[in-house]
């Protein structure tokens, strides 16, 4: 029996799907059986980010209305063993699925896999409720912005009222240079409001956009920056004690040398 984890954020565009693609791949790379489920029905994009779009034949909607079996609808990722995707239908919308149907599918996937990662749509409506219905734990993704933190706070309250009590926080796209300048909230500011367990901080990394567009999760190609952070998060999900490195720019001197040596913004110093 595996674990069903919903990845959610409230606000859109904070990097939920990218987190699911990379963390799912990282878990599969460490020989775990992983199913990732796109619960963003009507606006699917997890298959695009994972580069599996062209191989999607059946979606979760086909499984629900009985035109496909669950096994047949799962798309295997050829780059890594044990990683499967259940795509969302593009033609339907979120109200076409009931929480019970979503829960049934996830419970079946849970029997065959070590991890079922459910990619929740943005918002707090039915789509979110569907995604959360099967989950026993949640990863809340936020960026260090006031509006994203506010929505994350709302989502945490809703998850708690759905009786999900293991909730971990991912702070995505932290830009150490901006934090040092005082233009961005740092992890401490975010935790001060949200007061839940922090499971990882992902630095801003310009390689993410390229990898998303290519459909190749960054974790395949890189060991540092955001990819390193995703790998450490997957290790922490597995219960390993991995310290969270501090993404800090050590004063003006380091920034000066960083510029001189052509380091990317956001690279760990």
């Amino acid at each position: 029996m595996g674990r069903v984890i919903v990845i959610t954020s409230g606000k859109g565009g904070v990097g939920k799907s990218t987190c699911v693609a990379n963390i799912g791949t990282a878990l599969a790379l460490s020989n775990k059986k992983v199913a990732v489920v796109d619960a963003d029905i009507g606006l699917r994009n997890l298959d695009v980010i994972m580069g599996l779009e062209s191989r999607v034949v059946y979606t979760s909607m086909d499984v629900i209305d009985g035109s496909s079996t669950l096994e047949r609808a799962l798309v295997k990722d050829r780059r890594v063993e044990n990683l499967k995707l259940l795509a969302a239908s593009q033609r339907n919308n979120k109200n076409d699925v009931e929480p019970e149907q979503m829960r049934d599918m996830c419970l079946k996937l849970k029997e065959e896999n070590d991890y079922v990662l459910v990619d929740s749509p943005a918002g707090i409506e039915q789509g979110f409720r569907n995604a959360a219905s099967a989950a026993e734990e949640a990863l809340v993704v936020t960026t260090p912005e006031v509006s994203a933190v506010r929505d994350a706070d709302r989502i945490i309250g809703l998850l708690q009222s759905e009786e999900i009590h293991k909730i971990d926080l991912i702070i995505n796209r932290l830009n150490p240079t901006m934090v040092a300048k005082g233009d961005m909230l740092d992890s401490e500011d975010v935790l001060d409001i949200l007061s839940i367990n922090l499971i990882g901080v992902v630095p801003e990394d310009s390689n993410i956009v390229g990898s998303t567009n290519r459909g190749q999760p960054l974790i395949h190609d890189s060991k540092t920056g955001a990819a390193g952070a995703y790998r450490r998060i997957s290790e922490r999900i597995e219960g390993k004690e991995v310290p969270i490195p501090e993404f800090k720019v050590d004063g003006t001197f380091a920034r000066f040398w960083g510029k001189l040596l052509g380091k990317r913004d956001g690279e760990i110093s």
Partner: protein
Amino acid sequence: MNKNYIEVNNESYVSVELKGYLDGLRLIIDSDASIAEIELAIKQRLANLGDSLTGTTVKIEQLNRSLSSEEVSYFYSLMQREYGLVPPYTDEEIVDSSQLTSPSAEQPIRGIPANPPNTSIYHESLSEEKEKAELIRHTLRSGQVERFLEGNIVVIGDVNPGAEVTASGDIIILGNLRGIAHAGALGNIAAAVIAMNMEPTQLRIGNVITRPPPRKHRRKPAMEVARIKQGNVIVEDFEGF
């Protein structure tokens, strides 16, 4: 607003209208029906108002029927209890302003006492009657709302931005106040908000709404109290009531 006459028994009729004026709302009752029927009509009229009018003053006006003063005060207390609408000030209470200086003292429900409250009786009744408080043992997150219109609220946890606490009495927050707190929501301007760390989005006491100036520097959190002094909401270090 349309006049909605409700026919009762083919003979009597009830019309209850709600109109807004600068100094608050007026509930205009036009009826020759019985008290029970008027009560039903008032409830129907106010049922859909929600929480938005909590703390608003409402004055009852009558066309062609004279309700007795007991009946009027019965309706005032009904509207206050069920909908959080506050009866208008009466002359005797304005004279009786000495009580407002005691921050913990819960005011008697306005408009209802037939004889003006005598200070000694008032304090006696306070010591005998214990105040009610609702206890919340968790952090209130964005979008979560707690309302308690029968006394005070104590929150053991934070009130985050986007969360709201409303009480008819005092609000005590054993944590950070970053959302909205509304103390004295039924018009008690002697109510206070106390927090371990006072950084609210908005503070409301009675019918006074304030937005605290942003703090320029981070400071060590200290317990503070906000209350009305000379018409303004003042935040200062809390040194006990």
